[in-house]
């Protein structure tokens, strides 16, 4: 295991985050605060409690998930796409490192960054609403699993993309809708029965449900199912990444 190389990639990627501190950290915090003001305070004050939790508090896990999904995805995607775009990928391909080490470096850095953002948003949320976390360890587990899974997903997108448009299109057209429709701002049980069934094919439902259970002990689907589905997604992204490096798909001719 070339851990020095993993550390080098990780450090390189984290340095990129710190260079763009404004864009990386402050902007998600501001946009999340706006969600709290609009949904939590303005609209939320007119909504009854959901599953025994005030609406403002109810949306906190969903908001954290929303940021976590977007940030893991875009950071990992950009992290591996940029060397492809500039051509510096030659160095990565010619270095004595294994695919696992490359993934550890890029995905590790993207997941770290998004988890840090998730925790910052959690801290910001305490300024607006009263929070309780019933199962903190489970919360951390879901945070880590989701961040890693979506960073892997982003890594795959970054390798697949051959232009900036493709790089933007998946987060914009797929992940954001899935996250919004996955119960960030409502409980699935509030939907008509037909749409509840449709929702169950949305992977994000399981992530948000499990994450919310860690906070309030209530969930749309059982915690075991949530955890199992999360692990399935992680496994799927792992398989895809393994295939990519085995064949050199989009990396080597």
């Amino acid at each position, binding site marked *: 295991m070339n851990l*020095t190389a993993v550390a080098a990639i990780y450090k*390189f990627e984290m340095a990129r985050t710190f260079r763009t501190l404004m864009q990386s950290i402050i902007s998600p915090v501001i946009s999340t605060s706006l969600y709290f003001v609009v949904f939590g305070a303005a609209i939320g004050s007119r909504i009854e409690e959901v599953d025994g939790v005030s609406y403002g508090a109810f949306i906190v896990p969903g908001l954290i998930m929303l940021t976590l999904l977007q940030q893991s995805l875009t950071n990992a995607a950009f992290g591996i796409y940029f060397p492809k775009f500039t*051509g510096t990928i030659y160095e990565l391909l*010619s270095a004595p490192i294994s695919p696992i080490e490359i993934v550890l470096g890029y995905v590790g850095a993207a997941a770290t960054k998004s988890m840090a953002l998730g925790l910052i948003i959690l801290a910001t949320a305490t300024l607006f609403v009263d929070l309780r976390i019933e199962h903190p360890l489970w919360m951390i587990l879901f945070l880590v699993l989701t961040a890693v899974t979506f960073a892997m997903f982003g890594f795959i997108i970054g390798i697949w993309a051959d232009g900036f448009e493709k790089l933007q299109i998946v987060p914009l057209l797929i992940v954001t809708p899935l996250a919004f429709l996955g119960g960030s701002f409502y409980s699935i049980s509030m939907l008509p029965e037909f749409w509840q069934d449709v929702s169950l094919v949305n992977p994000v439902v399981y992530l948000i449900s499990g994450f919310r259970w860690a906070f309030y002990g209530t969930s749309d689907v059982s915690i075991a199912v949530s955890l199992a589905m999360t692990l399935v997604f992680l496994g799927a992204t792992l398989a895809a990444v393994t295939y990519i490096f085995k064949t050199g798909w989009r990396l*080597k001719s």
Partner: protein
Amino acid sequence: MQSTNAAAPILAVRGVSKIYEGGFQALKSIDLQIARGEIFALLGPNGAGKTTLISIICGIVNLSAGEITVDGHDIGRDYRAARSKIGLVPQELTTDAFETVFDTVSFSRGLFGKKKNPAHIEKVLRDLSLWDKRDNKIMTLSGGMKRRVLIAKALSHEPELLFLDEPTAGVDVALRREMWEVVRKLRENGVTIILTTHYIEEAEMMADRIGVISRGELILVEEKAELMRKLGHKELVLHLQDPLSAVPPGFSDYDLSVSADGSMLTYSYDTNAERTGIGSLMRRLAEEGIRFRDLSTKQSTLEEIFVNLVEDRA
């Protein structure tokens, strides 16, 4: 079997072919061995396969057939050991933009699994006259400086085998001479160097051996001196006192030609031949009463040899 490690080639390429998706055959069964410590120049026109060969050895392009070992390590099965010995300076100026010179070179060292060594990085940067620029962002550097950064990155992990893919393309004369100096120093330190170049002057000055690649085939590998001697061909030019309208009859044994204005008689001969025929030609000319006021000789350059080789094949 090879008795000592030092005698074994640092690079052995056996039967390597490359067919790109779409069917283009970039390389046709290349065989090549590079001895430790030599400077090898790979010459060939654009699209001949030089960069493809280097990219395969370095792990950037997959090979279609064949086998490559670097210091005895197979580049597929034992890629870690093989790649850690290689430094690559690519043809394109592909650098990061926002990182500083020092950071990007340190990153390269880390990527190759070597422990931090600021003293070594400093030495590399000083040797390449980059030390003053160590805190500059790469995007602020000139093209020549970026080229040096790429070399510094390749040297950051102390490679034993260095690939320079057109290192002096688009580089001014002063910098080119400086780079030659760097290459010489590296060789003194025991680094084996493989360079591709368009500047035949460069190969002529630097290389111990020369390989010529054309349309994916390695058509020739030869010691430089041997190549010059073997394919060398010399011309003796006689500046005549009285112009001739044609080669005089009775000289058909000699490869002679007369210039358009008739003032010069050129004799082409092979430096390898047992007898160059100059002595007998002179006597015959004297007998015929053809007198000259001056004479000069001209030896073919590597460039002419190279052009002839490639054209013969075309």
